[in-house]
């Protein structure tokens, strides 16, 4: 039963991955026609030279062979060659990924703290007007354009207050504002889900029973609310990952940081389809794997689900 569920879930993930690759191939490689031609036509090469370059990039092959070739490459970690930079895409990814991952990880940690703080204030905060006010904060956070927030933070902390130097920033100074910029919109959906979950758990009969038995507020929070409210946020991991990545792309553009964002921007500006294709497929693969891991881990972390499945 469990093994069948596992196989089914893994198969589904693989199917979505294959479909994502196909979609990216269609959008970026098949439909635009001859990206190589467009790129090199501007350089004024002779037809002979063009034919040679097309042969080198494999752009002369029929579409199905290109598809198989590209798919085979992706499976073996060869993401093609950047037309713009003339180096393997895998190398570009390896160079730019660490900076973006660091930025995204720090931003995620900051967003989690912010979301916990908001959810705590909104559900357990002292005054009811304060709780009401805090509850409207996530909606505001979602409505703020990421790039604008970044610029406003620069304006406030660098130009007005002078706390963060722009000319020769320390490493922490360079990351502080970008991390805050990404964290604010990411914290909003997390806080919303946490608030909803805590509300739901506090209304559960078992909380009333625990209180009736004389459990302290802290005990209820620790043993009932924390577990039941935190666990469901796991299911958002995949979506949050996508948001983090998108946020990082825009934020790197605002702050002029090197990373996946800068790479993406250059790829779009230069019609460097191989680079964008690799970024799209790799990030979709990460999304699918995160969701798969969450799906498989969830019954382990929430014994009620595992029991339910066994009983069914």
């Amino acid at each position, binding site marked *: 039963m469990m093994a069948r569920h596992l196989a089914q879930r893994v198969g589904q993930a693989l*199917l*979505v*991955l294959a*479909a*994502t690759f196909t*979609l*990216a191939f269609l*959008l*970026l490689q098949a*439909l*635009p026609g001859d990206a190589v031609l467009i790129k090199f036509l501007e350089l004024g090469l002779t037809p002979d030279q063009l034919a040679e370059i097309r042969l080198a990039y494999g752009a002369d092959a029929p579409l199905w062979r290109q598809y198989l070739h590209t798919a085979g490459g992706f499976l073996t970690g060869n993401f093609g060659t950047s037309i713009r930079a003339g180096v393997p895409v895998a190398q570009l990814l390896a160079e730019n990924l660490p900076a973006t991952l660091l930025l995204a990880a720090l931003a995620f940690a900051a967003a989690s703290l912010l979301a916990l703080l908001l959810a705590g204030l*909104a559900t357990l905060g002292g005054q009811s007007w304060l709780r*009401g006010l805090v*509850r*409207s904060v996530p*909606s*505001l956070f*979602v*409505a*703020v*354009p*990421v*790039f*604008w927030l970044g*610029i*406003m933070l*620069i*304006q406030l902390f660098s*130009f007005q207050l002078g706390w963060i130097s722009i000319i020769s920033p320390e490493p922490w100074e360079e990351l502080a504002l970008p991390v805050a910029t990404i964290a604010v919109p990411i914290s909003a959906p997390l806080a*919303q889900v946490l*608030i*909803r979950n805590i*509300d*739901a758990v506090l209304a559960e009969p078992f909380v009333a029973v625990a209180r009736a038995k004389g459990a302290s507020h802290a005990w209820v929070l620790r043993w009932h609310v924390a577990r039941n409210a935190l666990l469901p946020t796991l299911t958002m991991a995949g979506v949050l*990952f*996508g*948001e983090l*990545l*998108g946020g990082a*792309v*825009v934020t790197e*553009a605002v702050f002029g940081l090197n990373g996946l964002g800068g790479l*993406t*921007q250059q*790829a*779009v*500006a230069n*019609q460097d*389809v191989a680079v*964008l294709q690799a*970024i*799209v497929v790799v*990030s*979709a693969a990460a*999304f*699918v794997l995160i969701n798969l891991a969450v799906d498989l881990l969830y019954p382990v972390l929430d014994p009620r689900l595992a029991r339910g499945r066994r009983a069914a």
Partner: protein
Amino acid sequence: MSGAALPLRAGLPRLRPGLWLACAVLALVFAWAVAPSLFTARSPVEGIPGAQLLPPSWAHPLGTDGLGRDQLARVVYGARESLAGAFVAVAVGLLLGTGLGVLAGARGGWVDAAVMRLVDTLLAIPALLLSLSIIILLGFGSIKAAVAVGIVAVAQFARLSRAEVLRVRASDYVEAAFGSGGRFAAVLWRHVLPNSLTSVLALAALQFGSAILALSTLGFLGYGAPPPTPEWGLLIAEGRDFLARAWWLTASPGLVVVLVVLSAERIGRGIGGPSP
């Protein structure tokens, strides 16, 4: 402003002050888009020589930009660009998405499976990367950016409308309509569509706000309308160059975007439907 709306009241429009304010904000911005000349006498594209980077004043309530153009006029005329883009985006998402969703929900079987895997695929690609992929395919420009943003929304509309079709189909009156000899398409048109409309409309309002946000991002990155078109994202990008001397150039269009997105979200929640 409680996050968890009472399910009993979810269907009724709750006319609270916040909702009225949201409607007023959107009405004002729509008026800007339809008749910008009523709100400003100045040109959004032609600058006044010698009047560069003026701070806000009576003559120029939001100051002037680096070319001496009135910022208020740029923001007011920018509503046309941003709202038109958001409308195109929502229309693309709504038509394609509900089309796919209704097809999947109504047909079932392999059609359903295929459509839902397509939806999974669209959802697997981070929204910004998906719209950039479509932009690389279509090229730069305001309509193209709007289509790209709309395609990103297809998955959500498809999911919602499929769920709605399945929900309504399971109800007794649809059973009865089929039982009394109703044809498939007729039942879909007369019973399923009207009953799914509220939640689809609510999603459309929410997506309208998201589209404004996404379009301003693409405009900021330079993939939308080319300068000197007044587009809110582009205005922010242009104002960034004068951040140290004229912060109001970036602050004003950004605040307008925040207000419009907040209002759209508030109205979406007011219509009732999927909670945010």
